[in-house]
């Protein structure tokens, strides 16, 4: 009799776990379903190759925003990757009061609301240059990427066994070469996936771009001029009163989700392919 009660509890627990998992998945699938359903119908070749049309006219595309988003990610990466990887190396190599403080600051930076980062970039870049620009948007996104890259680099290098460093030193290799040619390559998979996760994080950010990249309905590759971006298209078009524009916003959301999905697959491939066995 007692045994049955225990078995029943066990059974009940298993069922509850499954039930809760299903309940959690329902909204996730609904979000994906709605975006795909509304987004796919907006997608055609013009969507990728044409610039937006004025309200009321049919057709047109969001080439400016797709190119703009890629341009912003490139600027942010150029700024954030060298600094992020270097600081990550520093934090994994040195342990003292200064680096412990730095680690806390990196955590704080990661928690700063994205709108605040946008305002900071506005004060630093937009105000002195007296113009909204791709550069200021790139700086804002770069600041958001920085803590992610720092932490993933630091964690990737921290996992590398000390014996590898010993092997390098024992051959008479100096410290710089040991870091650059032995330790960094061994941590490459972790660093690369950290960079990709950083890109995934910033590609959908809207708030930091509002006062920086600003948006632009024309194609622009000049870092000193405003550019458009996919999240800005969603933000601006979804708030407009025109139904055709709403459709474009859905299309942009679909492309954004697709990009993140593809990046996710690349991250998994990178981790698998470059994984180092010790």
């Amino acid at each position: 009799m007692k045994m049955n009660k225990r078995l029943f509890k066990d059974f009940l627990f298993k069922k509850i776990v499954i039930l809760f998992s299903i309940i959690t998945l329902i909204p996730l699938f609904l979000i994906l379903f709605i975006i795909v359903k509304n987004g796919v119908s907006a997608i055609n070749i013009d969507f990728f190759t044409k610039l937006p049309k004025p309200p009321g006219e049919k057709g047109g595309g969001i080439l400016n925003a797709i190119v703009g988003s890629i341009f912003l990610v490139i600027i942010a990466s150029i700024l954030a990757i060298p600094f992020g990887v270097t600081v990550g190396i520093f934090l994994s190599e040195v342990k003292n009061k200064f680096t412990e403080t730095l680690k806390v600051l990196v955590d704080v930076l990661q928690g700063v609301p994205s709108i605040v980062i946008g305002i900071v970039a506005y004060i630093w870049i937009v105000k002195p240059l007296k113009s909204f620009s791709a550069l200021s948007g790139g700086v804002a996104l770069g600041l958001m990427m920085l803590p992610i890259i720092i932490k993933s680099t630091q964690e990737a290098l921290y996992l590398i066994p000390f014996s590898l460093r010993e092997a390098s030193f024992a051959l008479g290799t100096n410290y710089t070469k040991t870091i650059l040619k032995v330790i960094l390559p061994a941590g490459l998979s972790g660093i690369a996936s950290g960079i990709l996760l950083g890109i995934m994080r910033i590609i959908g950010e809207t708030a930091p771009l509002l006062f920086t990249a600003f948006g632009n309905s024309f194609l622009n590759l000049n870092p000193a001029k405003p550019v458009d971006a996919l999240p800005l298209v969603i933000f601006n078009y979804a708030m407009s009163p025109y139904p055709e524009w709403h459709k474009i916003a859905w299309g942009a959301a679909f492309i954004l989700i697709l990009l993140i999905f593809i990046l996710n697959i690349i991250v998994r491939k990178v981790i698998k392919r470059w994984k180092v066995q010790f």
Partner: protein
Amino acid sequence: MESTILKIRNLNAGYQNKWILKDINLNIEKNKVTAIMGPSGCGKSTLIRCINRMHEITPGAIFKGEIYLDDKNIFEMPPSDVRKRIGMVFQRPNPFPTMSIYENVIAGYILNGIKIKKAKMDQIVEESLKKAFLWEEVKDTLFRKGTFLSGGQQQRLCIARSLAMNPEILLLDEPTSALDPKAQAMIEELIVRLKENVTLVLVTHNRSQAARASDYTAFLYLGELIEFGKTEKIFTTPKNKKTEEYLTGKFG
């Protein structure tokens, strides 16, 4: 003909204000195998890590005294020069995981930025792998990652990597303790063969390994050098009571 290649004089070493080694004086003879033996924690590893200045890379390491390599104090030479002349093989095989077998053997040259011709590189790789008894097993898979090899093969790869630099002395820090008996026997045989070209210092806690593979044996106990001499003498007629007790398995 015997000649001393390395003289250790009044060496003290330890970590964080705690001395482990106390006043070690020891001569290492050229082209011989010197075994350093003793119970765990007696300072064997600390001693050989001082010989190629690897001791000081550990945070908190302290040391004083002199070690003369060909009458020059190694503590007055740049550490990287010392380590190029005195190679080291560690307890656990540690091939570079991102490099192929070929790159692992030639790693000392790549990492130190020493430029040599491709043909010369091929020759060094082949010779070193042959010296380490590994050539026959890997000659068709030279460009596969070194970490795909078995533990014993990895350890021989690490020996080949050290030999490629043409060191005068090769330090082996319990090189077989992480390996199976067959791989152990192979490394021991290798050690005996290698002394034609290089002087070897072997740290071991395996008494029979010291007896089989070495010409000289040093017995270390609680950081002090208790006894040093020809291996056969130490093993047959030890002068010190502690040595005798250790050899007969009373402790350690």
